[in-house]
C-alpha cells in the first residue's frame, strides 16, 4: 500500500502539513485538529512530523468496542467512522505512536484517512520531507538513509563530517 513517509532530516517544522490537514477537517487552521503532528526540539535542532502508519494489525481497530474503525479497501487506510465512534478513547490508548487524537468539538476520535488516497499534507509539504509512496520503496530508501546515519555516527563520530572531510 501507499503510505505517508516522513524524513526528519529535511523537515523544517513549518507546520504547513498541520494547517492543511486542519483545513481538510475543519476549514480552519487549528493545529490541534490536525491528523499529522510536527514537533520541534530547539535544543537538538530536530523536527519530526508523525502521522498514522496504517498498521498491518491495527491495535486501534482491534480494540474499538463500537466497530467504528475499519480498513478502506481502496486505499488500505485505517479509518474511523465518526458517526459510529462513541468517544471512549480506547483507540488513543491502544495506538503505540500517539497518532490518534480527540476531536474536542465532535467528542470523537480523529485520525489520518489518507484523504481518500491523495494526502493533502504531502501536497502542502514545502520541504519534501513528506512523501506518499509504496511502503516497500519507502522502507528500502529509509534503510539506506538509516545505514548512512549509523555509519556517520559510529564511523565518523560527528554529523558535520562526511566522506570529503
Amino acid at each position, binding site marked *: 500500500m501507499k503510505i505517508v513517509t516522513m524524513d526528519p532530516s529535511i523537515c*523544517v*517544522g513549518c507546520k*504547513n502539513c498541520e494547517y492543511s490537514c486542519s*483545513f481538510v477537517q475543519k476549514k480552519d487552521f487549528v493545529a490541534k485538529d490536525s491528523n499529522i503532528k510536527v514537533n*520541534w526540539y530547539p535544543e537538538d*535542532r530536530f523536527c519530526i512530523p508523525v502521522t498514522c502508519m496504517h498498521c498491518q494489525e491495527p491495535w486501534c481497530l482491534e480494540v474499538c468496542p463500537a466497530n467504528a474503525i475499519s480498513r478502506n479497501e481502496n486505499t488500505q487506510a485505517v479509518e474511523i467512522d465518526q458517526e459510529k465512534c462513541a468517544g471512549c478513547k480506547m483507540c488513543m490508548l491502544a495506538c503505540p505512536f500517539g497518532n490518534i487524537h480527540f476531536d474536542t468539538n465532535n467528542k470523537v476520535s480523529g485520525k489520518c484517512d489518507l484523504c481518500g488516497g491523495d494526502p493533502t499534507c504531502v501536497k*502542502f509539504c514545502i520541504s519534501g520531507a513528506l512523501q506518499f509512496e509504496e511502503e516497500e520503496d519507502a522502507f528500502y530508501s529509509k534503510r539506506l538513509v538509516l545505514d548512512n546515519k549509523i555509519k556517520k555516527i559510529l564511523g565518523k563520530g560527528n554529523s558535520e563530517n562526511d566522506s570529503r*572531510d
Partner: protein
Amino acid sequence: MTVETKLKDRTVKQTLCRMCDDHCGINVHMEGNKIVEIDGNKDHEWNRGRLCVKGRAGIDLVYAPDRIMKPLKKTESGWQEIGLEQALDEIADKIKSIKTEYGDGSMGVWKGEAIGFGQQENIYRRFIHAIGSPNYFSNDTTCYAGRHLGYSTVSGVYYQSDFDHSQCIMIWGSNSPHAHPNVTQKIMRAKKNGAKLIVIDPRLSTLARKADIYVQIKPATDGALAHGIVRRLIEMNVQNDTFIKDYTIGYEKLKDYVQSFTPEFVEKETGVPSATLELICETIAKRAPQMTSYVGNGLEHHENGVNNIRAVCCIDGIMGSYDVKGGSLLPEYLNTNTLTLYDELPLKHIQPIGSEKYPVFYDLRQECHTMMLMDTILSEKPYPFKGLILSGANPAMTNPNSAKVRKALGNLDLFVVRELFMTETAKLADYILPAASFFERTEIHGHALHQITTLTERLFTYPEVQDEYQFLHDLAHRLGAGDYFPWENEEALNEWLVEPSGISIDELKAHPEGFPYTPIRYQKYLTEPFKTASGKLDFASKYLKDFGYSELPEYHSPRYISEPKTEYPYTLVTGARKLVYYHSRNFNFKRFKTAIPTPEVEIHPLDAKKLGVKDDDLVKVTSDIDSIDIPVRITHDQEILPGVVQITHGWQDANVNLITSDKITDPIDGFPAMKSIEVKIEKKQANG
C-alpha cells in the same frame, strides 16, 4: 447538484500563484466559474506539485467577503460608490489640473506587490513617462532592489542560486520556509544529495533548523564575516586563480583590504567564533565551485547593506562559482519588446525624486525612491508632488516611519489606490478602485533560475474590476497619451510583448508548466563579457567609485556597535516573516488569524528575566521615533541572541514601522536600516 454532475463540471486550469513572491505553478479546480480547490502543479519545474497554505488561500483572497468590488470615492459623509467611468473621468480631470498648476513632475505612480506578477511594473513605468513625469516608485525600495544593486555591481545581474545542483549553500538573512516556501524543497533536495547548508541569521530561523552550520551573527555585521571568509580562503590558498586572473577586476585590492578581518576581529565584531569561521571556510573549500551564496532581505536592511551584499558576492567570486552548474547562475531573460520609455522619454530634465541623493539607485534601477517621497510631499522640495496612483502597496504599514507616511500620503491633492481590500493605505485615498486579483489578469512571467516562462491565465472577470493594463490604458486615453497604449487589452499587449522572442502566445498557452525559452548555458563569461560596467566581475567597482562611493565593498559597523547608546540597550530586528502572512497581507483571513493570532516581540529568556516578563506580558518598545506596545514571546535560548529582539511587520495593532526610521539609510541604495534598530524595552504595568 449531485456529486456526479459536480465532478463532470469540474475543470482544472493551470496558472501561477501570487499569494507571495514565489510564483508556484498551481492547479485551480473550478466548478463552472467558481474556484473550489487549489493545489500544486506537479509538472511545473519550479515547485513540482508542492504548495504552501498561503497558496491554497488564493480562494480566501478572491472570494473574501471584505473584498472591494466597486470604485469608491471619499466624501465628507464617508466612502461612496461611484461608477468606474465617472471615477476615471474625475481622476483624469484632477491629474490634468495638478499637472497644469504644479508641473508634470507633481504626479507619480507606485507599484506594489499585492495584485499581480511582474508585468504591471513596466506598464506603470510606461504610463507615468507617457504623461510626462519620471516619478515611478515601488515597494522595491524596501525589498529586492538592494540585493539587485549588491549583486549586479559585482556580477552585472541579479544572479540565481542553482540550489538543486549545489554542494554548498550559504543563506544570508533569509528564511525560505516562510518567505520563499518553494526554495526550501530545492535546498533540501541538495542536502539529500550531499550539499552542506550554512545559514547566517541572528535568529535560529525555520530554515536554520536544518543547517549543517548555523551561524548566529550579530545583526548587520554580515559584511565583516564575509570579508573574514574571503581573507581566510585566500590564506588557505584555495581561491580560483584562473577565474580571478582572467575574469575579474580588483582582486589584489580586495585581498589587501580584507587582511584586517582576522578571525579574532571577526569574532569580536560579529560574535561568530573563529572555529565556526574555520569550519565555514573548510566547507566552502572542499565544495567550490559548486557553492552559492543567497542573500535575503535581511542584508538589504543594513546601514551598510549594499556593501555587505557585495562582500558576500566576493566569496562566490574568488571561488569561481559564478555561472557554473551548482553555483551562482547569471540568467538569460526572455527577449520581449520593451514597454518602458526610458529611451524615448527619459525626462531627466525633471529630477526623478531621490535620484540626486541616490544616483546609483536611479541609474541601475531607473526608479524613484520612496524614502525621499514623504519629505518631498511635505516640504515641496525639490518641487511640489501632489498626485499619486498606488497599486497594491501598503506603505502605511510597510514603509518605515508610518506616522510620516500617513501624514504625507494624507496630504496629497489626489491619491488613488487600486486594491482588493481596505488597507491602512487605502483609507488615506481619495479614490479606491477595485483591482483584479491574479486570477483575473494574464501576464507573461519568467522563472529566471530555470529560464522558463509561464503565461498566467485570466480565469474570469468582474464588472468594473480592472487589471493594471486596462486601467492605465483607459486613463492614458483620457490624458492625451493614448498613442502609448494602443493595445485593446492585456491579451493584445502580450501578443506584442512576445513578438521578438520567436515564441507564440499559443505555445505558452500549451505549456502552463512553463516553457523553456532558452537553454541554460554555463560559464558564458568564457566567450561574453560580464554585464558589469567593466565587463568583468568587479571585486572593486570603478562604476561605484565614479559616483563617489568606495570602489571596494567596505565594511562599516552598524551604529549600535560603533556608537552604542546606553538609553537604547536592545537591538531590534524587524521583518522576519511568519508562515501565513505576506508582509501586511492576509491578516483579514479568519483562519490565518486562528493560526497566528497576535503580534509578538521575540525575546531571549535572559532578557525576559531581566525585564521581569513572561509570555504574553505587554511591553513597550521605544526607539528614537516613537514607541509601540506589544506582547512578549520568549524564545528558546538558542533561537535569538541575548540583547536582540525581533518584531514581524504588518500587524495593525502593533505596527513596528511606527518605530523604524526613514533617516538611517544605506548611502548607495537608500534602503532603511530596519534590521538593527536601537530600542529600549519596558514592562507595561497592568493598568499602563
